[in-house]
Every structure is written in structure tokens, then in C-alpha cells.
């Protein structure tokens, strides 16, 4: 029988740094909740808003697969591998921090906030060579269907990471339903609702709610309103 866990949006951790406002689905920085450390290999899901003209100064990372999905506005990225890029709304960015990387992310629009998801997945191998990639996604390819945006395979759709993880975005009209099949035993899916209401089997979810489901082969997801959501399939043991 499927196991589930519900994280309502208003129960997330919250940090207000002035220029940065961040909701944490799992323990992060000074938000520590021993009941919310991770969902399998999914360790961080931050829902960030960065003020205009501000950003994250240069800072290090190691041994983590870091995925950023801008939801509004653009972020300027620089890193110690000499990558300079702008991640736009509609893109997905991935960094394998491995043995160590420095980067900065900056909102170069002086007047408008950037909103983006920052997602960290434990790697399946420590101390890999650092790497960076980004991809522009076609929003039309997730209208009333799932769009794979991340996988473990370099030659598959979307970006890839060092973990048996598959991410899908959906943008469904009210009433549309699909069945999601997990890729293999031992995996779980964390659903994060970006906008609107969806139902997973019989569980209703609202905007910014999170819902984990595991010990199952698959589940139905139905849009109760026009809705956008992200499915993150990860190993439960890693």
C-alpha cells in the first residue's frame, strides 16, 4: 500500500533576509525541523524570491546536485568553471557540485523580483567532477501532459544529474488527469504544486503544497482547477 506525506504550504520553514525571501519545504540553513530533513534523495526544496538588483554573492558548494527552475524573471549565473549565463523563466539549470564549485546568482533587473525553485538532490557518487548545464524548456510541451525536464541519462529529455531521479513539469487544464508510473521499485515522488489545485489519488493539494508518495508503482494526478506542478521522482534509499 502506498505511503504518503503531506506538507501544506503554510507549514514550510520561512526565512526573510530582506532581499531574499525563502520558503523551505525541508530543513535548510537556520530552519531545522527533524521531521522534515528530506524525502529520499530530495534534500532541499526552496521557494525563493530575490529582490531587484540583488542576489547570492559568490559562495561554494560541494557534493550536491543543484537544480534551479526560474518561475518569474531572470537570474544571471557566474561560476568558477567560467560559465556566465542568464537563466530565464522557462529554463532549467543544473550544477553537479562534486569536488567543489563557486557560483553567484544575481537578479540584474533592478525593479522586479525573481522567483525560482532551488532544489538539491543527494548525488549517487561523491566527489564527481563539477559540471554545469542549462536548457530552455518549451512550455507548450507540458500542456495537458507531463514534460520530462530531468533524468539520470545525458541522452534523455531534459538535463541530467548524478542520481536516479526524474523530474516532470505539468500544466493542466481543469479536469485533465494522467497516471504517473514510477521508473523502478524503491522510488518515491514528491509533488510540488506551483499553481492551482490538483488531486493525487484522493488527496487534494493547493498552491505550494508538497506531497510525497512511495511504496507504489504509480498514481493518478488530476487538475481540480487549471494547475501547474512539478513531480520529482527520487530513490527513497540512496
Amino acid at each position: 500500500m502506498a505511503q504518503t506525506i503531506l506538507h501544506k504550504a503554510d507549514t514550510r520553514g520561512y526565512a526573510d533576509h530582506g532581499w531574499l525571501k525563502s520558503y523551505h519545504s525541508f530543513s535548510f540553513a537556520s530552519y531545522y525541523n527533524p521531521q522534515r530533513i528530506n524525502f529520499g534523495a530530495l534534500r532541499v526544496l526552496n521557494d525563493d524570491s530575490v529582490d531587484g538588483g540583488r542576489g547570492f554573492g559568490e559562495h561554494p558548494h560541494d557534493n550536491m546536485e543543484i537544480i534551479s527552475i526560474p518561475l518569474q524573471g531572470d537570474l544571471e549565473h557566474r561560476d568558477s568553471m567560467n560559465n556566465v549565463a542568464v537563466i530565464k523563466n522557462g529554463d532549467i539549470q543544473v550544477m553537479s557540485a562534486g569536488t567543489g564549485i563557486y557560483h553567484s546568482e544575481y537578479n540584474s533587473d533592478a525593479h522586479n523580483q525573481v522567483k525560482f525553485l532551488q532544489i538539491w538532490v543527494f548525488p549517487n557518487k561523491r566527489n564527481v567532477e563539477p559540471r554545469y548545464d542549462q536548457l530552455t524548456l518549451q512550455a507548450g510541451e507540458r500542456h495537458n501532459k507531463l514534460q520530462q525536464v530531468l533524468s539520470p541519462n545525458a541522452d534523455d529529455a531534459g538535463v541530467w544529474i548524478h542520481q536516479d531521479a526524474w523530474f516532470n513539469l505539468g500544466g493542466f487544464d481543469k479536469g485533465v488527469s494522467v497516471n504517473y508510473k514510477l521508473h523502478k521499485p524503491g522510488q518515491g515522488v514528491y509533488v510540488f504544486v506551483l499553481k492551482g489545485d490538483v488531486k493525487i489519488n484522493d488527496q487534494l493539494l493547493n498552491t505550494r503544497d508538497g506531497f510525497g508518495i512511495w511504496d507504489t508503482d504509480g498514481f493518478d494526478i488530476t487538475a481540480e482547477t487549471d494547475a501547474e506542478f512539478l513531480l520529482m521522482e527520487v530513490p527513497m534509499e540512496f
Partner: protein
Amino acid sequence: MENIQILVICRHPEILATVVRLINNKPEWKATGCETDESAINAFEATKHAVVLIGAGVDADSERHLRQTFTGIHPQVKIVQHYGGGSGLLFAEIYGALNAQ
């Protein structure tokens, strides 16, 4: 009250310095950072550390050797792998280790 001693081993000097600085921002914690296995073992022999963080670049053979050495000296020590290289997971990793049975 004595500080809680935390040993950090990391091959990447800038990340090591960052992690040590972040830990030492907590008045109740005291971090020692080491880049090499030898210096880490020396530091561990000199001071009773409650927690050891295995950071970036420490390969599996070194980690096995360090774990064996540290638990031989101080069986109750909590040894955890550090992920992320910054403030994001650091405090949860340390709190988790300190609260572990």
C-alpha cells in the same frame, strides 16, 4: 560551558574555510579544519571531538581509514558526511549527529 568540538576534513581549502567559519559563528560550537588525513588524526588525538564532518574530496579509502582511526580512539564520536559545502545543510547535519543515539 565547554564548546562542542567539531572536526571538519575537506580537501578544498576555500570550502573548508567557509565551513569552519560558519560553524564558529555559533558560540557553542568550535570547529577545527584539516585538509589532510594526517593533520586530522593529529587534531583528533589532541582534542576530544564530538562530531566529525567528512567533506569534499575525501575519497572512500581515506574515509574508511579515518572512521576506523577515530572510532578506535573515541568510540562515541559521530562521523557524518557533509554535503553541500556551505550553510544550507551544515546545521542540520550537526544537530542530527548530536541528537543521534
